[in-house]
């Protein structure tokens, strides 16, 4: 009974968390023992879920908790298994890292952190196996709550507090939308189990309403533009392992929810629903990557890059629904595959990168790209492992990021057979935006890696930077290996994911080629990709070159100073700063940003250049709303005059009015 096993593991996580309270201040207990233990549970969970994925079966369980009329329904099916694998596998690596990362000091004591952290993990697991609206929402909000407490670990800093507040508020609003969506979904049965929702028959209008509400609710959690505002605030605020969890895993629970509602609970989808996630997703890709390109805080940069990747995922969801709604099952399966694959990829890549920044943060105490640089010499482990993540997220073959983008583009290329002319015109734009996004992601990642790890250290203090400890190394290595494996064995992953496509779409992606190393998912088209061969070929050519050069010529190398064009002393300040590197983007897409500049005057003794970039969305959407509520509150305040006669008058008037009403009726 795999489901029971999963529940046991989730309970185990809670147990670990509580154990942290035994000695709240002891780093030795939590770091060296509890977190690694949690990692083990994570791997175990991944194993169980993988088993059930391969089995492809569905298990149900009813636990007499929750509402009297509505006990907690739990369910383990392929879809939830995939995300459980994701949760277990990447959280395993992150927990290992966290074991070495958290240390006593300011903010929440480690024991409490341990509790919040594992509660976070357990609640995410519960979200994935919940099978009724109530337990889903409970798990959902516990997830938000525990992560909120993790975000405000360093609660002494005002900006971190405001970030936490924004995060929790958005989460709560999202949850309200979900509640509404479920309220529509039950479709008159007033049974809030997912089973009842599957059975319910909604009128097209209501179904669309439920879908859109869910899109808002889950979009707010996933960071879909324009509901993403909390994300670039909360991710930098949190401790890096938490950022990794939030970005790598928590956002995916929102994707899970979207798939669950859109493709499972609502039954066969209507094609035009897909347009909303498709268009929003494309917008999100572009928006996210643009803002990532102009960031100067390394964690904010990664946060925006997460926004971009969520955009890719939602684009995939949109395509899936459009195809499925148009009855093109095989392609829909392909698009869904791309979506799921990208979720897996992103959870590994982004966790890896966030943990990398965590180590840098610990080693240097700096988050500002402008004060980093040259760390590849001081912290080789982090640098080289992060490089893998960087290349992967830039979507370069033969790493994993490329596979999902390849699949997505393939499914785009099918779209010219769609029966809807309008969508047919939309699709090329979509392709273009995805391609542009991928290229810009490369830009962003070069900036990220180059400015942090390459070049000369921009501050003298960086000379003291030290490489991370062994636990951190193990965690990073695990995630890096994950990126490699996902990149090199796509066929095996896809076969495993087939269970999900069969469950949600009713079709699996065929395998056109007989070879285990060749990915050929498109029926009837000579389209294939073999990362292993690709890698071996590249390595072969490179090695041949190396040996060729070495054999034919000498291999003398001399170290000398960098070429200074005869100018004299080269100072680190002459390198491009983060702002400088983002300048072309800023220049090209000015209209997207709200920029304020401080340019040095010609006669400045100490010339100083400062630039701050804000999102227009605040002025456009959020500030007006807040203002409106404020005004309403002020008007409401007039009621409370403070004068007793007025109060008596209220009672009197109410009395008379009600009496009049009573007489009328």
């Amino acid at each position, binding site marked *: 009974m795999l489901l029971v096993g999963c529940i046991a593991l989730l309970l185990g996580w809670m147990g670990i968390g509580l154990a942290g309270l035994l000695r709240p201040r002891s780093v030795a207990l939590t770091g060296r023992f509890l977190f690694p233990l949690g990692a083990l549970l994570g791997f175990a969970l991944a194993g169980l879920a993988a088993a059930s994925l391969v089995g492809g079966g569905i298990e149900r369980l009813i636990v007499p908790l929750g509402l009297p009329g509505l006990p907690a329904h739990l369910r383990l099916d392929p879809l939830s298994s995939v995300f459980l694998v994701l949760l277990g596998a990447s959280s395993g690596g992150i927990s290992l890292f966290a074991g070495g990362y958290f240390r006593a000091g300011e903010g929440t004591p480690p024991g409490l952190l341990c509790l919040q952290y594992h509660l976070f993990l357990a609640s995410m697991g519960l979200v994935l196996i919940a099978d009724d609206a109530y337990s889903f929402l409970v798990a959902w909000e516990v997830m938000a709550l525990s992560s909120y407490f993790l975000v405000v670990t360093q609660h002494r800093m005002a900006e971190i507090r405001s970030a936490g507040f924004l995060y929790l508020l958005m989460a709560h609003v999202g949850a309200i939308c979900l509640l509404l969506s479920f309220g529509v979904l039950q479709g008159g049965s007033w049974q809030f189990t997912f089973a009842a929702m599957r059975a319910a028959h909604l009128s097209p209008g209501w179904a669309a309403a439920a879908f859109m509400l869910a899109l808002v609710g889950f979009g707010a959690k996933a960071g879909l533009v324009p509901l993403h505002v909390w994300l670039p605030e909360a991710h930098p605020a949190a401790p890096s392992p938490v950022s990794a969890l939030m970005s790598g895993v928590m956002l995916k629970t929102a994707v899970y929810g979207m798939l669950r509602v859109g493709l499972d609970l609502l039954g066969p989808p209507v094609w035009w629903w897909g347009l909303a996630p498709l268009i929003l997703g494309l917008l999100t890709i572009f928006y996210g990557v643009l803002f990532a390109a102009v960031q100067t805080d390394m964690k904010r940069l990664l946060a925006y890059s997460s926004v971009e990747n969520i955009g890719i995922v939602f684009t995939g969801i949109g395509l899936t629904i459009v195809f499925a709604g148009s009855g093109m099952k095989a392609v829909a399966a392909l698009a869904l595959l791309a979506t799921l694959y990208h979720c897996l990829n992103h959870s590994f890549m982004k966790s890896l990168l966030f943990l990398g920044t965590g180590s840098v943060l610990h080693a240097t105490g700096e988050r500002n790209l402008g004060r980093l640089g040259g760390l590849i010499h001081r912290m080789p482990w982090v640098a080289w492992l992060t490089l893998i993540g960087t290349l992967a997220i830039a979507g370069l073959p033969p790493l994993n990021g490329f596979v999902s983008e390849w699949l997505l583009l393939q499914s785009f290329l099918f779209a010219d057979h769609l029966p809807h002319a309008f969508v047919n015109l939309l699709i090329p734009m979509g392709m273009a935006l995805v391609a542009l996004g991928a290229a810009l992601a490369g830009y962003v990642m070069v900036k990220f890696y180059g400015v942090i790890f390459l070049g000369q250290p921009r501050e003298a203090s960086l000379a003291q930077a030290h490489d991370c400890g062994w636990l951190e190394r193990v965690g990073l290595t695990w995630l890096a290996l994950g990126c490699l494996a996902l990149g090199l064995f796509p066929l095996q992953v896809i076969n495993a994911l087939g269970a999900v496509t069969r469950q949600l779409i009713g079709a699996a992606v065929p395998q056109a080629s007989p070879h285990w190393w060749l990915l050929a998912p498109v029926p009837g088209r000579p389209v294939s990709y073999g990362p292993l061969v690709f890698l071996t070929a590249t390595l072969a050519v490179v090695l041949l070159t190396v040996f060729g050069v070495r054999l034919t010529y000498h291999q003398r190398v001399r170290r000398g100073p960098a070429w200074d064009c005869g100018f004299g002393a080269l100072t680190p300040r002459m390198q491009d700063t983060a702002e400088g590197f983002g300048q072309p983007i800023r220049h090209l897409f000015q209209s997207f940003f709200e920029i304020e500049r401080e340019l040095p005057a010609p006669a400045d003794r100490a010339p100083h250049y400062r630039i701050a970039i804000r999102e227009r969305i605040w002025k456009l959407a959020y500030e007006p709303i807040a203002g409106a509520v404020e005004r309403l509150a002020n008007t409401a305040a007039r*009621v409370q005059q403070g004068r007793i006669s007025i109060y008596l008058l209220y009672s009197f008037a109410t009395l008379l009015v009600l009496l009049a009403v009573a*007489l009328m009726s």
Partner: protein
Amino acid sequence: MTHLSLYQQLLDACAALLLLLSFAMLSQRRVVTLVNLYAVQGAVLAAATLLLAWRTGEGHLYLSAALTLALKVAFLPWLLHRLIRRLEVYWDTEPLLNVSGTMLAGLVIVVFAFALAQPITRLTSTATRSAIGIAVSVVLLAFLMMITRRKAMSQVVGFLSMENGVFFGAMSASYGMPMVVELGVALDVLVAVLVLGVFFFQIRERFESLDLHHLESLKEHE
């Protein structure tokens, strides 16, 4: 019945008198007179109760008449007078709504009250049912008075006369309430006034006056 019995006439007279007294209170600005008027109101109420008791021979009505006499004619006015003397609050300042306006509002309210009383009157069979409308209007007029006054003292008198109205309503609609309840009510009124007494001194020692505009600081709107 075409021509009313003497008893009936007396009772109606009492009712009319009560209404008159309410209006008088509404217009009166001298606190001492207000208290006196309240005492008279209590007396009329007692008289009406007595009449009813004598007519219907309900034992507990005698008791409640006695209660009324003791409490509302003797004790409370005496207490209030003492308070007035101790606290030197003889005059109420100009009411929030001027007298004529108040009167006008009062008239409207009386009409409304009678409209209100119709269904009740239809329901009840008591000899006094015609007076129910008056009872209601006494209550509402007292309410109006509390709204328009500025001195704590006059608000209290308004509160008490409202209680009178309620009592009269009970009387005329159903020859009074069960004894337990009446005793409870009387007790509550008594305690209320005592508490008020304490209150006045507290307010007084804090603000050197019983003017309500001192008590307008707790509010949302500034």
